[in-house]
Each structure stands twice: as structure tokens, then as C-alpha cells.
């Protein structure tokens, strides 16, 4: 049984190679465009600016400021979304009461809340975290609710005939069965929180990756803008991978992955 194994190992390696080739090709094209006179910094300039910003501690401080905001907002949003999603899935009365609000706020981009949040909450951390909270909450609450609604009736019946009452069914069947949905919701929520963060920092902040780019814009400082963009991309990707890893660990029991 070594032939199919080798084959599958090869199949797993091939996309990785393709990914690397594609990234290198992208950087090469960027370089060509930059030297051909497009208004772009060269990769070298960006790397050296990144070196400076890391060296004087600016990039680190900005990244920490941004990550702190997003993680607090995301943690609060998820912590609120999971119980609310469960309650909506479990009690149809609560679902009827809560759902219109969630559907309504879902149609408003969280960024559109920023003006209101700034007026009501001032320009310190609160409005930024609130907007991130809202973005994470809305993404996660829907999928948690979907997860609860989709729990296989047969599993609930199996638990009931084994003597489980509502509390046990909830804790030992509904929660684990909806974990895959919750984790997907968390990933969507984190992406949404991250996207919102940068925009929130563009408006009113003294620190953070979004703020740094906004500031650089005033001085036509393209390399700094690029460093900001790439940092945002890399941090977002890393956080998503961490959640993906958690998802694999927690939902490995699922069939066909």
C-alpha cells in the first residue's frame, strides 16, 4: 500500500509548490512594474522600510495595538454570539424575538455604524472595539443558530431514550453537534472583525496598522503603506490558520474531511 500513499503525499505537496511559485511570480511582476515606472515602491524599498519600522518599534506597537482591539472585540462578540445563537436555536419564541434585529443589523455594514459609534461613545477605544464586536457577533450568531437548528433529530432522540433530560441533551449533544458550525462562524467573524478594525483605525486612532497607513498617506509614503498592507494580510492569515487548526482538532470526529 505504498504506491497510493506516495501518490497522496505527492498530491499534497504539489499545491504547496504551486502556491510558492505563484507568490514568487507575483513579487517578480510587482518588481518589474515598479522599475518600469509605475507609481509603486520596489519590494526592496518595502523590505528596508519594514526593517526600519521593526527596528524603531513602530511596527510592533502598531501590530499590538491593532491585535489587542481585534481580539477584545472578537472575544466579546463570540462570547455573546454563542449563547444568543444557542438560545435562538433552542427556543423558537426567543428566535422570533431576536431574529428580526439580527437580520436588520446584518444588512448594515459595520463600518456604517462608525459615525454613530463615534458620536455616542467618543473617539477612544470604545467605539472601535464596539464596531469590531458587532462585526464578529453578527457573523458568529447566525452560524451558531444554524448549527443548533441543524442538529440531527435522531441524535437527540437517541439521547432521550438513554435517559437524558434537556440540560444533558443540550450540553452533551447540541453543543458538540453544533461545534463545527460555531467554528466556521468564528472564522467568518474573525475575518469580518479584522476587516472592520482597519477601517475603524482609519477614522480615529493614535496607533495601529490602519492609523499608520492613514498617516503615511499624508506624506505620500508608499513603502510604509505597503508594509501596513502586508502586515495586515499576514496577521489575518495567521489568525485564520490558528482557528482552522482549532477547527481540525475539535471537529476531527466529523466524517469525510
Amino acid at each position, binding site marked *: 500500500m505504498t504506491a497510493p500513499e506516495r501518490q497522496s503525499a505527492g498530491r499534497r505537496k504539489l499545491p504547496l509548490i504551486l502556491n510558492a511559485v505563484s507568490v514568487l511570480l507575483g513579487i517578480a511582476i510587482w518588481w518589474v512594474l515598479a522599475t518600469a515606472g509605475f507609481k509603486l515602491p520596489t519590494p526592496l524599498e518595502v523590505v528596508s522600510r519594514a526593517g526600519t519600522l521593526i527596528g524603531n518599534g513602530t511596527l510592533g506597537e502598531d501590530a499590538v495595538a491593532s491585535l489587542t482591539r481585534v481580539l477584545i472585540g472578537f472575544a466579546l462578540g463570540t462570547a455573546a454570539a454563542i449563547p444568543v445563537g444557542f438560545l435562538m436555536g433552542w427556543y423558537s419564541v426567543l428566535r422570533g424575538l431576536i431574529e428580526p434585529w439580527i437580520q436588520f443589523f446584518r444588512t448594515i455594514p459595520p463600518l456604517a455604524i462608525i459615525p454613530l459609534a463615534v458620536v455616542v461613545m467618543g473617539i477612544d477605544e470604545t467605539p472601535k472595539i464596539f464596531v469590531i464586536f458587532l462585526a464578529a457577533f453578527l457573523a458568529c450568531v447566525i452560524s451558531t443558530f444554524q448549527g443548533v437548528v441543524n442538529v*440531527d433529530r435522531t*441524535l437527540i*432522540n437517541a439521547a*432521550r431514550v*438513554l*435517559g437524558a433530560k434537556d440540560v444533558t441533551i443540550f450540553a452533551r449533544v447540541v453543543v458538540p453537534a453544533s461545534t463545527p458550525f460555531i467554528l466556521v462562524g468564528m472564522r467568518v467573524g474573525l475575518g469580518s472583525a479584522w476587516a472592520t478594525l482597519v477601517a475603524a483605525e482609519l477614522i480615529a486612532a493614535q496607533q495601529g496598522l490602519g492609523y499608520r497607513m492613514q498617516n503615511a498617506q499624508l506624506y505620500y509614503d508608499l513603502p510604509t503603506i505597503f508594509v501596513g498592507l502586508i502586515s495586515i494580510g499576514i496577521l489575518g492569515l495567521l489568525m485564520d490558520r490558528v482557528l482552522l487548526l482549532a477547527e481540525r482538532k475539535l471537529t476531527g*470526529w*466529523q466524517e469525510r474531511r
Partner: protein
Amino acid sequence: MTTKTAKISVQGVTKIFALGRETFTALDNVSLDIADHEFVTVVGPSGCGKSTLMNILAGLETPTAGRALVDGSPVLGPGPERGVIFQQYALFPWLTVRQNVEFGLRTSGVPKGERRRRAEHFIEQVGLERFADALPKTLSGGMRQRCAIARAYAVDPSILLMDEPFGALDALTRVKLQEQLLHTWSQNKRTVLFITHDVDEAVFLATRVIVMAARPGRIYDVIEVDPAIERNEEFRLSSEFAALRKRVWHSVYHQEGRTAFQSASHSSTA
């Protein structure tokens, strides 16, 4: 109490489902007594209300009219004296075989050591000891159903309600599991209500075969099988088995004419 020997007593049970504005009579005035230690199989066309009948006895559905009694008391919900085995196995996919088998023991507060010991015993009985710590996704259909059987046995029910438990398995696995089931039953004679759509299975396992008809769901025929017969390969290949099989087959597959007539007379009296 009408019959003091009945372990299970179904008395005039009717179940009507509402489908939008329409109603659907899944069970129409079904009555049935099952004595302690009986092995009753129920066979009939799809949609004749077999699962509905079982769900009512399991306490997962309530009858629209009539009542179901177990040990003389009305069924008000699921109970530990009734073990249920579903066609779709219904194992908790996030729990290992052992944790699945321990599930019912945990809900009834059996202490950890005792729980473990009992689970081990029943896992061994169904031959899954090598897979005790495996997740259901790694098991074959037959192994999953054996795990479900161990899980039901673990709480030591006096009644087993089985809804087409071997329906999704291949013929070989099915025969094997039938024999295992009879073997455990002969050692510890629980009362069994076994639903199937397979005539052979119904005849081979039962001490009594109930044939149901659809639209509306009702009992159509009852065929007794001598409980003294040993259920082995010899019986499966015997002319006696063939005769019983023929009898049940006719009841299941040639009820059309009388079905129409009976449902007509039903609706005129209703």
C-alpha cells in the same frame, strides 16, 4: 388492567399527523399485546406506520387516540426499561465506542468505575473490544450497529425496540448480526419488538410476525412461529421456514385488493 401478562399493550392507538391543512392517519386503531420474553417482528410496506408505532412505545411520540402501556403503566416518555435501536445507528460521532456505550450509564448516574466495567462487558459481548477507543467514523456499518446495540444493552432494558436495525447492512453482515442478536436474546430473554421490511428477517427472528398495511396504517395479519424451533441455518433452509415465508410474503405483498376495500369501509364508518 385488561391483560395481566402483557409486557407491552397497545390499545386502540391512532396517530394522525397534520400536514399543513391535510391530515394523515399514520396509525388507525392499532391494538397489540406483547407478553414478556416474546420476540415480535413487525413487517409491512414503507409508510405503514411501523416507525410511528415504535416511536410511540419509545415515548418519542404521543398517540392521537388510544394508549400504550408498558408493564401496565401508560407510556409518558422514554424510560430506562425500554432500549431503542435506530436504523441510522444514531451513534454520537464525537464520542468513542466506549463513551457511546457509557452514555446511558452516565445519565443514570452510574459511578465511573462501575460504568467502565459495564461498558467493557457489553463492548466485549458485541466483539468490539479492539475498537473501544475508536470514533464511529472509523467503523463499518455492521460495527456501528453493534456499538448501538451495546449502548442499548448497557442500561439493561427489559424491552428492546428495534427499528429496521439491520436494514442498511449487506446480506452477510445482516445474517451474522441476526444470529448474534438471537444468541444474546436466548441468554437473557428481553421482550423484543423488531421492525423490518425484510420478510426473511421477520420470519427467522420472530416468535410472532405482525404484518401491517398502509393507508391507513393498521395491523393486517398475525403469523405465529413456534418458539421451540431452534433458529439456526437448518431452520433458515427448512421447508417449514419456506412455508412461513410464503405465508408472510403473501400478506405483505398481496394486500392491495383488501386494502382498498378495508380503507373504504373505514372511512364510511369514521
